[in-house]
């Protein structure tokens, strides 16, 4: 509704985000080689979430957007989490 989303993100900032993303990619590959058992899934997911957080915040400008958008994203992710989670009331206890 106002001018907040006219924020211009500098090339340097974008590039450093990109470098971080590459580093995190390396990290997942390394972690997947470790012997963590089930935790490997959660570890991989945690890193993936971190990466997507970066993409959303900087590449997709979410950091500089209205609060509203952040809420919407949150609602959608929550909905998806519920869809998946509630299915497990069936899958886990069958």
């Amino acid at each position: 509704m106002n001018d907040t989303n006219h924020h211009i993100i500098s090339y340097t900032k974008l590039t450093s985000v990109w470098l971080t993303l590459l580093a995190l990619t390396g990290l997942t590959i390394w972690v997947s080689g470790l012997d963590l058992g089930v935790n490997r899934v959660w570890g991989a997911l945690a890193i993936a979430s971190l990466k997507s957080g970066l993409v959303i915040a900087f590449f997709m400008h979410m950091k500089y957007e209205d609060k509203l958008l952040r809420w919407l994203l949150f609602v959608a992710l929550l909905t998806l989490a519920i869809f998946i989670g509630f299915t497990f009331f069936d899958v886990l206890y069958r």
Partner: protein
Amino acid sequence: MSEQLHRDKSGATLGMWLFLLTELILFGGLFLLYAVYLARYPHEFASGGKELNVVFGAVNTVVLLTSSLLAAMAVTAVQRGAPRTSIRLLLGTIGCALIFLGIKYVEWNEKFGHDIYPSSQRLIKGPQGESVFFSLYFLTTGLHGLHVLIGATLLGFVAVRVQQGRVDSNNNSWLENGALYWHLVDLIWIFIFPLYYLIL
């Protein structure tokens, strides 16, 4: 009038984000199935994942991340009033998309060569979870590939609009939204990569 324009721009961003959320949930359906079947067939998923080529997956991740960077820079370029740079960056993004699809093609081809594709004899005869794993793999990467294709086409359109001067530093909804779509494609791959290529 200018007030009207501003409204439109925020509205366009809002609308685009809402659309991205639906795309997220669309893939969410496949991730739901992935979660359920992973819980049921952890071992088959593990051995299936080992058959996927981590190098292809990792290279593709890097390609997509780079393409995303270029798309984000293209937005910055237009905002700074440098349309020519922006077009070059967009072409870079599209180039990355093509590389990605090329690698995907090689990868799928290799799988087909090993008699791995939905309802191939090997999968029908093999252990049950394996067929499920590969079907999910083909469906997810296939749907994702389709999105790469759509995204690249969209960015192509946007590049043309930039060229025509219809996108500039004041009026860049098209470019921003095209880039948003592209980032979404990247975002989904960020999850596909570890879930299919790396886990177990």
